[in-house]
């Protein structure tokens, strides 16, 4: 798969957003406002106290369809950890509950059994995602913080995480596929809206995983090796 665009620090921030509207999520996870004016990525990041390199690597990952590890500059770990925590918050507090509500609403004319089984599936999925994120916040992020502060916890290493890091979007995709392939539900504005939301959310979760697998894990591995060889 080919890399379509690579942004650099002197590209205009407004273009990043207009060329790919999903970048709005990335801005909000860095707590950046709109009103980019004619500012470049570098200028706008600086104005908002965001590390330009980290920002660039994330947006370039988002437009890159390949699967390579693309760490090409040092990451600012506090920024990326804050970014990931903000993403967790977004999925758990906003996007997934919204999908749940919309799903329930779209299914309101179905038989109680159909409604219940689909909602059970979704709720179980939601619990799994929460557990997954919770583990990262409890275990992985503190480990990374201790590592960059030179007080590593020697009982843990990032390979433990990368080995058991499952793809949280897979089950959501499965739900979407089952609805599309096997449920002869009448299409409606509400149902389409849920499906659109699920498509977007699954893509977004995949990007979230990619950031962890392709940016965070390789960078942490490098630091671990340096620390070990000291």
């Amino acid at each position: 798969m080919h890399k379509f665009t690579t942004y650099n620090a002197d590209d205009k921030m407004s273009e990043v957003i207009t060329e790919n509207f999903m970048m709005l999520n990335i801005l909000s996870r860095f707590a950046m406002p709109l009103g980019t004016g004619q500012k470049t990525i570098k200028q706008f990041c600086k104005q908002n106290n965001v590390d330009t390199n980290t920002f660039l690597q994330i947006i370039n990952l988002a437009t890159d369809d390949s699967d390579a590890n693309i760490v090409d500059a040092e990451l600012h770990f506090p920024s990326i950890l804050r970014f990931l925590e903000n993403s967790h918050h977004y999925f758990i507090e906003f996007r997934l509950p919204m999908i749940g509500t919309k799903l329930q609403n779209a299914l309101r004319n179905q038989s109680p059994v159909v409604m219940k089984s689909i909602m059970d599936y979704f709720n179980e999925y939601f619990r799994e995602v929460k557990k997954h994120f919770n583990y990262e916040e409890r275990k992985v992020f503190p480990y990374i913080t201790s590592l960059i502060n030179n007080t590593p916890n020697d009982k843990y290493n990032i390979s433990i995480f990368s080995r058991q890091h499952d793809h949280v979007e897979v089950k959501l995709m499965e739900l979407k596929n089952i609805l599309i392939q096997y449920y002869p539900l009448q299409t409606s504005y509400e149902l389409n809206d849920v499906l659109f939301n699920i498509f977007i959310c699954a893509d977004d979760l995949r990007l979230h995983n990619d950031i962890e697998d392709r940016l965070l894990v390789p960078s942490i591995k490098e630091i671990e090796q340096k620390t070990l060889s000291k």
Partner: protein
Amino acid sequence: MTRKQRVAIAEPSLIIRMGLFALLKRFTALPMEIFELNQTEHLDNLLIRHKPDILIINPLCIDANHLAQLKKNPKFSGIKYIANQTSMMDIRLLKQYDQIITLSMEAEQIKDVLSKLIHKDSADSLALSDREKDIIIAVAEGLTNKMIASKLNISTNTVMTHRKNISNKLNIHSQAGIILYAIANRLIEC
């Protein structure tokens, strides 16, 4: 109706990869969706993500043990492997693959290799057998493989094989998903 087969090309050489990609694109009569994997370091993850039906891989990129593991792993069941042989190779290694293509082959020969694999798949239809429906019902009722085996008087291994085939046919991999399927198709009471 035949589902499009997802064909992944895992080949580190840009020239070979793009060449193969361009060639496969010309086989418009074969129902394929072709994509490239430009690195094979995290092959397992890539396979989970892209779910290819056919993986064309340079045997130099994957050691024999890894391939044997992939073939055993239920997560990857149903994937067919084509070796893209670019150099001299031990024939025993190549035996692990379902098919082999080589750099010297003509377009027609490569097309034949692919069409053999693709048509093999559509021949065993994607419809569920009655036995598979029994298994789905039992899974949806929450029975374990062992319980299903004794209920249907078959071995646990047979149950597992059926479950693998069901997953491949329906593209559903979780128990919760099987329940949803069973309800949608009124296999269990609503």
